[in-house]
């Protein structure tokens, strides 16, 4: 285990200055997620246009560097993508965090994949996995219009 893997520069950067933090007016989908054990929580807002494309996305919430960075990177990455693509990315990301060595989707460019892989450090820190995945589960919930609040405890 190496803390350097977990707290890579890019994580620290996104953790400290999260992109897309806040809320915008004309969102048409949203969902809340929280982690009862640590008190982390996140609220994802997004606007899906008539072509099912993510026109805009943002999030509110607070949490550790990992969870803030993950939400920040995620929102950056899915803006402009189609719903189907977003779902593929989410599945790919969660699969990678859970068991796979790398990302497989063709939707992401190599540099995007590198960025996402910066979150793979949590794999060595089981208690921190949910920090990295909370916003992603919440995104899925928003897309599915689920009313259930996401709680990350496997």
């Amino acid at each position, binding site marked *: 285990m190496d803390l350097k893997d977990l707290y890579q520069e890019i994580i620290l950067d996104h953790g400290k200055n999260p992109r897309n933090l806040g809320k915008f007016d004309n969102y048409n989908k949203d969902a809340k997620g929280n982690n009862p054990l640590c008190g982390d929580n996140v609220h994802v807002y997004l606007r899906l246009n008539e072509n099912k494309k993510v026109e805009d996305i943002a999030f509110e919430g607070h949490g550790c560097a990992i969870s803030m960075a993950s939400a920040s990177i995620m929102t950056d990455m899915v803006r402009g993508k189609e719903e189907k693509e977003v779902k593929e990315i989410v599945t790919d990301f969660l699969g990678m965090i859970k068991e796979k060595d790398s990302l497989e989707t063709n939707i992401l460019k190599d540099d995007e994949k590198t960025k996402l892989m910066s979150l793979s450090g949590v794999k060595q*820190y089981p208690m921190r996995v949910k920090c990295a995945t909370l916003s992603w589960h919440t995104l899925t919930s928003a897309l599915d219009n689920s009313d259930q609040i996401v*709680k990350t405890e496997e």
Partner: protein
Amino acid sequence: MNIHDIKKEFPIFDDKIQNNDLVYLDSANSSQKPRIVVDRIYDFYTKEFSNVGRSVHYLAVAATNLYEQTRVSVQKYINAKDKDEIVFTKGATEAINLVANTFGQKYLSEGDEVLLTELEHHSNYVPWHFLRKAKNIKIEFAEINDDGEVTLEAIEKKITNKTKIISVSHLSNVTGAILPIKEIVQLAHLKNIPVLIDGCQGAPHLKLDMQDIDCDFYAISGHKMYGPTGIGVLYAKKKWLEDLPPYQGGGGMINEVKKEGITYGELPNKYEAGTMATAQVIAFNESIKFMEKIGIQNIEKHEKELLDYGLEKLRKNNSVNIIGNPKEKGGVISFTIEGVHPHDIATILDEDGVAIRAGHHCCQILHDKLNLPATARASFGVYNTKDDIDKLDEAINKCKKIFNL
């Protein structure tokens, strides 16, 4: 592991107890513990101890994983559909109280009926009695027959359109009768009545398959399954755990806590309030593994052999009267001796290292029915041998001699 010399896996048999080899025939009360279970407790406390689920440091993470591994082991062992259907309690008694309390809160009201049987342990009666007091419900008892069994028909007879839940033993701790629980569940479900099985005596001795039995709840005590004291399991179908209110409140079982209100955590946390019996849960995994290693079929077969041998032997023994004669019977022989009170039997047997239990075995209703204030009971575990039964028989003879019979 050869079941015929499994005794050596149990350290308690290493030394003499009061100058006698221990002939332990009180497993229905509590079983002895194999070395691997005790070692696991020791190692956990001395090398790995931490509280579960609440801290992110190394020891806490490791303990949490171990704790959850037991949940999965239990799930597989009893073939539950989902690991979240396994709730850890401090014992079967708490498991039954949990169901009676939460089901009672939500679904029972004045005039409703709860159906038990005459052979239930107090742990499967008193919690329902509380509801009788609090909510004015009625408790019905399906009758035992002359063989000390409760048949499907006896259950059916007592079901009315007021019956809201049926709660019965899997295996009687007095007569040894194995109840037709699968059939009872089928019957009950036809009438939309949920069923709780008190599996205290079932779990240590019989193959369990929750999906096959299809019961709604099943209660287990770890200490009767070669596990530590202070740990039990409530199996409950997920729909019930989601539907029923929580039982105890405290840390770990909540989602969000505000001054105005509280939301509860997901399964299985919702029913595990406060610091749990961490070490005991973790060590219980070894009990499950121990039983898996022997194989429940082998356990059943071995105990059946002991039972048959024991019944034959004691039947031959003059003036021994065996209680009940169920067709399907587990490794329990309750008996009386004409002219010797069970407590005197127990004391005299103990002098030769033969440990049995005497009394009403927490089944007063049953003893009332049998018109006996007390019985003596020999009950078996994996470690018992025919030799143990010979010693029981000899000690009974000594008993008769002392009482000039």
